[in-house]
Structure formats: C-alpha cells, structure tokens
C-alpha cells in the first residue's frame, strides 16, 4: 500500500501543492487531475525522491524511502517520465540496464519475459535493434517495459501514452490493466481516466 499523507510539493521557495493525501492499494489505479503547470509531474517526482526527499509523508507498506534506501525505494516506486529516453545500445541492453545496478540485489534480466511483454505491446523481435532507431511510439513502449521488468509495486506514470495513436493507447492501457491484475498499482498523470477509475483533483490543493 502506497500512502501519501499531507505531502507538500515545492519548487524552490514556492509551494506548488499543499497537503496532498491519498492511498493506493496493490492493483489500484489513480489518476491525478489538474491544469498544466500545477505541479503534477513534480508531485510524481517527489514521491519517487527525484525532486525532493518525501520524508515520512510518503510510505510503502509503512516504510519511508529513507528506510528502504533511496535506490531500493525507486525500484519499488518507479517513476516513468513522459519523455522515453533511450540509453546507448540495443533494446536488450536498455532493458537489462537496471539489472546491472546494485539495487537489483542479484535479480537477473529475464529475456523471455521481456520478449513476451514487447510482443504483447505489438513490438515482436525488437530486442536486438538499436534503441535509437525506434520510432517515438516504439520507444514509449520499450520505456514502459524497462520500468516494469524490475517488478515495482507502484508505477508513477507521467503521460505514458503521449506518443501513441488512439489504438496504441488503448492497447497499452489494456496491457497495464493486466499488470494491475498481477498487483501493480499505477498512479497516472493523463487526461482521459478510464470509466470507473479513481481520480484526484489537485486544483483545490494549489499552493
């Protein structure tokens, strides 16, 4: 369970959001709503500990980022940036990269699972392609698979379908629903929450 309690989001001396609170159970999805420039991305980056230390205002199963150790926290609560940045090398090298970090604690890159997930996202046989040669939409899907292969508990997804056409968008969201069925919780920034999904309006919390 990801719990956010009375979290303030700041940009330098300026408060963007005050007192953000919500809970996100395994398998749940929550969409953050609010005008652009409100601080939605900064909120996600704060939860991941990339923008500022979230302190005890954010916990996963009762433990803070500091208690996990920051790199280990980010493996459990993974931020998926809107821009699908590819590292040098092949798609395989991109997907395997997080398993070279110390925080992987011995977990090995599962090539078969990567291949299967990419195929499910309509990207079969791309593992050995140079990542830089992929199209924007292809990069976005590889970006998503790279974030999920390490098995995070929570995905902080910042506009994960921005580079996709409507068909690709629906396919990717269906695929994420399957991952949610396996216990993944997703905190979204996107403009079109699905029917029946929870949403949190941040306008009232503007700082």
């Amino acid at each position, binding site marked *: 369970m990801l719990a956010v309690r009375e979290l303030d989001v700041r940009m*330098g001396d300026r408060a963007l959001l005050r007192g953000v609170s919500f809970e996100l159970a395994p398998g749940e999805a929550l969409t953050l709503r609010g005008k652009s420039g409100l601080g939605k991305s900064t909120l996600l980056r704060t939860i991941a500990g990339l*923008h500022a230390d979230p302190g005890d205002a954010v916990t996963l199963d009762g433990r803070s980022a500091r208690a996990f150790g920051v*790199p280990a926290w980010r493996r459990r609560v993974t931020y998926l940036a809107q821009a699908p940045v590819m590292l040098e090398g092949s798609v395989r090298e991109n997907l395997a990269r997080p398993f070279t970090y110390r925080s992987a604690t011995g977990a090995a890159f599962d090539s078969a699972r990567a291949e299967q997930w990419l195929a499910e996202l309509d990207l079969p046989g791309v593992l050995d392609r140079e990542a830089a040669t992929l199209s924007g939409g292809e990069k976005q899907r590889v970006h998503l698979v790279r*974030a999920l292969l390490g098995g995070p508990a929570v995905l902080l997804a910042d506009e994960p379908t921005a580079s996709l056409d409507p068909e690709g968008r629906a396919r990717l969201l269906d695929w994420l629903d399957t991952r949610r069925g396996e216990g993944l919780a997703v905190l979204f920034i996107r403009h079109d929450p699905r029917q029946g999904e929870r949403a949190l309006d941040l306008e009232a919390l503007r700082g």
Partner: protein
Amino acid sequence: MAEGADVIALSLVDLAGAATLVLLAGVVSLLLRLGLGGQLVLGMVRATVQLFLLGFALRWIFAHVHWALTGGAALVMISLATRAALQRTSHALAGAFAGSFLTLVLTAGVFAILGSALFVGADPWYHPRYLLPLLGMLLGNGLTGISLCLDSLLVSFADDRERVELELALGATRWEASRDPLRRAVRRGIVPIVNAMMVAGVVSIPGMMTGQILSGTEPVEAVKYQLLILFLIAGATTLGSLGVAVFASMRALDEDHRLRPERLRRRAK
C-alpha cells in the same frame, strides 16, 4: 648576446628584437583589419610583466630555501590553477572549488614532490628550483585536460539531465547514473596529453626541451627531462581529471541520489 660558460644569456636588446616580430604581426593585423593588433600588444605586455614578476619572485624564493615558502608558493599556484580550471567550463558548479583544489594538491602537488624528490633527486626535496617549475608544468598542462573533463561532465548533467534521471528513477545510485558521463569526461580530459605524447619529437619539439637545449643542455639530457615531465603530466592529468570529475559528480548528484540542477549554472557567453 652575452655568452657564459654553458648558458647563452639573452640581453634586453635580444628580447626587444624578438618583440619587434610581434609588432610586425600587429602591423599585418592592422593592414588586414583583423582587429587583433590591440590584443597582440596587450598579450605581449602582459606576458612580459607577468613573466618578469615571476622571474624575480622565483629568484627571491630560490635564494631563501625554506619548506614553508615553497609550500606557500605551491598552494598559491594550485589555487590559481583550480580557479582557472573551473572558470573555463561552460557551466559553473556551486561548491566545486574545495574538491577540485584538494584533487590538484593530491595529484599535481604530490606528483611534483615525487618528481623533485625521487626522480630529480633534489636536496632538500622541497627545493623550490626543482619543485616549483615541475608543479608549474604539471598545473599548466593538466589544467587543459581537467577543464575539458569537467566541461564534458557538467554539460552531460545539464543538457542530458533526462538520461541521468532515467537511470536514477530505475534504481541506480548516483555513481551508477554518472558512470557513463564520467567515463566520457575523463576520456576527453586525457586526449590532449595522449596526443602530445604521440607526436612528441615527431611533429613537435616540446617547449620545455626546446628551452633547455637553447639554454645549453645536452639534447639527450633534455629528452630525459622532457620525458619525465610528460609522464608526470600524463599521470597527474588522468588522476586529476578523474578526481575532479568524482568531486563534481558528488556535488551535482547529492547523497540522496538526486540530481541537483540548481547547483549548475550556464555561464553567459
């Protein structure tokens, strides 16, 4: 020219003659409207004043051999070199001076002491006649490499921020996230000294060796000194670049494995 036993001493008239060659270049600049005449003259005047001041200061320091005096002069030289190295980069990094200064003390400073004490065999080991010129050569040449290295690293952190943050978001430590930029930066920093070693004696006769030969040193002896200097510069530049890059990474990415872009500022061109 006035001839001594070994050294052919230059008179002020000799120097004035050489200076007219620069003035000639200034005239060409004027004729071609290159707009460089003023800079050439200013450069000539500055070099003359600075080098004579250095010469008189060294003459005084050489006449008063004391470890504190040599150490003080060395620390001033390292401070100035650190400042120059940090100012040559396209981005400024707040709080980088202390780490860079310490790195230069531990690389150029220690290498100059090693060169003076072990290889040249100066007695005492802190004799300013040996230690200070060696340190000057190491700092002067190392500075270029260290600046290039630091510039490459800071550009990566500033302009390639999304890539560094991607790795952090996926669970990388700050060292893992800065591994590639750091490797690229150190490689870039040592290219000039590697190139200098590659072409030494083939394309160019190095400046120090030329000076020694002109002042009467036997060429093979001058080669030995030049090689000593080149090897010390290569070692100090590589370790110095690495050290400065590690300190800069520690400032640009904090202990919470977070990139701190507010500590980086692009310099006005």
